[in-house]
């Protein structure tokens, strides 16, 4: 959903005038070049590039990352913000190392998504939309992720965890807490 900036919810000051520009390794630059090569118009690569910048800059588009994107794509800073604030997977604020995204839509809901969210909430001590103070976990309720036949489900990063039960969920969270969780899908 689009995020709206109002006097009560202003655009962060530091976002308006980035002070520095992010620098990436040669490997990352090569990855970015591969994406740019797909399109006749540079701007088309905006979403793939945002995912890369987000991955490399600690999980969200920080101001230096935004400045980099604008420079690399030959667009204005505002163009980057315009797009970033439209897409729910592009983070404009820091998120936890383990972003627990529980599907809340109908098929998951009627098979117990509510209980899954509640269990996460109780265990992590945060409500959906919040991040733990140590920055380890964020919890979100998200819309249909296309796992309706294996409901209820949640996603961590790009990994799907399906046919969830209370025990299964506990095990997943245990692994995360011990810092042993391995992301299986490369983003």
């Amino acid at each position, binding site marked *: 959903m689009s995020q709206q900036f109002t006097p009560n919810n202003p655009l962060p000051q530091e976002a308006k005038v980035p002070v520095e520009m992010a620098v990436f390794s040669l490997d990352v630059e090569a990855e970015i070049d591969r994406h740019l090569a*797909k*399109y006749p118009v540079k701007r088309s690569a905006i979403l793939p590039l945002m995912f890369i910048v987000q991955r490399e800059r600690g999980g969200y588009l920080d101001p230096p990352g935004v400045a980099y994107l604008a420079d690399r*794509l030959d667009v204005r800073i505002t163009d980057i913000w315009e797009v970033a604030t439209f*897409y729910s997977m592009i983070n404009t604020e820091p998120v936890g190392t383990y972003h627990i995204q529980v599907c809340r839509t109908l098929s998951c809901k009627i098979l117990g998504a509510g209980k899954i969210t509640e269990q996460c909430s109780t265990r992590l001590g945060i409500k959906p939309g919040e991040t733990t103070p140590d920055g380890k976990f964020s919890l979100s309720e998200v819309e249909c992720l*296309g796992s*309706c*036949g*294996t409901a209820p489900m949640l996603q961590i990063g790009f990994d799907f965890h399906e046919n969830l039960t209370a025990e299964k969920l506990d095990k997943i969270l245990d692994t995360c807490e011990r810092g042993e969780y391995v992301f299986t899908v490369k983003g």
Partner: protein
Amino acid sequence: MFIGAIGCEPLQLKRVGLENSRTLDVYRQHGGYEALKKVLDGMSPEDVIGEVKKSALRGRGGAGFPTGMKWSFVPKDSPKPKYVVCNADESEPGTFKDRFLMERDPHMLIEGMLIAAYALGSRTTYIYTRGEYRYLINILDAAIQEAREAGLVGDRIMGTEFSCEVFTHTGAGAYICGEETALLNSLEGLRGHPRMKPPFPAIAGLYGCPTVVNNVETLTAVPDIIKMGGEAYQKLGTQKSGGTKVWSVSGHVNRPGVYELPMGYEDMEKFIMEDCGGMLGGKQLKAVIPGGSSVYIMPATDIVGKKVRMDYEGLVVAGSMVGSGGFIVMDETVDVFESTKNLTEFYKHESCGWCTPCREGTDWLVKVFKRIAKGEGRPEDAQLLLDLCDNIEGKSFCPLGDAAAWPIQSAIKKFPEDFRRHLMPMATRTAEAVAAD
């Protein structure tokens, strides 16, 4: 989870059970890229479009528009480049068929895209996959690379004059990008707002050039249509709905999964009670949403004993639609007020904000639903919800506004009791209390 065909030979799901089904070797051992060879060996683009027309294939993304006709709208003489875009933004609640088609058989999609590109004179094609399906993008990228190394993607495919590139593209979590013009805006690097039609994408689509946008399942049907001929494919289904359809079954059934059925499968009740293993825990069937969350909800009384035929025409007669084939089964424990509230919250979250009726309307709908859920329902709220829907349906910029209104309208009509129950507390209050309110 079950994956397979019922009532027909598997076509789209032919290879999904094979070991290493996503590799080029397995795909080729089981008939892969034969259709592309047949096309390049002597079919003209017009021949290909002709076969697709004969097949009576209709778009599997939801709208059900005849694919051959869509292809024939692309101007032959345009000097601009032409684009084929695969809509793999599968985000209609209850739908997950495209995910398994791409996961298990990515080359089938690549072959379908190449044939479409040949028919339309396109040299560049994109697969727009929703951002959450990142693992599928990795699978597709690997498959495209394999195909490129085998001379099936890139320059001079199979040694012919035909050259074509296939690229993957990622979305980033926006339901609206499943709407084809919003998808094109997103692919151009803009916010995913829908565009005014006309001009239709066939005339001015991606970068203002002629473009065809097709769903994954539509494109994966193309290789078989070419191989067996359009007529034979059509005969697998009915006259107006050719071929087979892949359904995503979820909810309260014993065997959810991905089911391929011939178009015109004769009985929805049998499908639920036998093919899908019956109701979970032996409970009673209450309702089915047969084509993804946007279509009209069907009460059990419209299904049991009614021999509902599962194709485009049959479901319209039964009071709903095929849509994307996201088949959600609900048992007696489900409160349709709650399930409709859940879907309305989905539409509010996913409204792109471009037009007022949808942006404001879905917001108001959720406000009313939440107030009722708090126990503050008023008898006139059912009418209020219908009035709000009336101000969205047919008045929004793109069809997703209608999609937000239809579930509510049909739920109130078909399950008035579930709504009335929530509207009772106020109804029983005294006249003085209401006046003082």
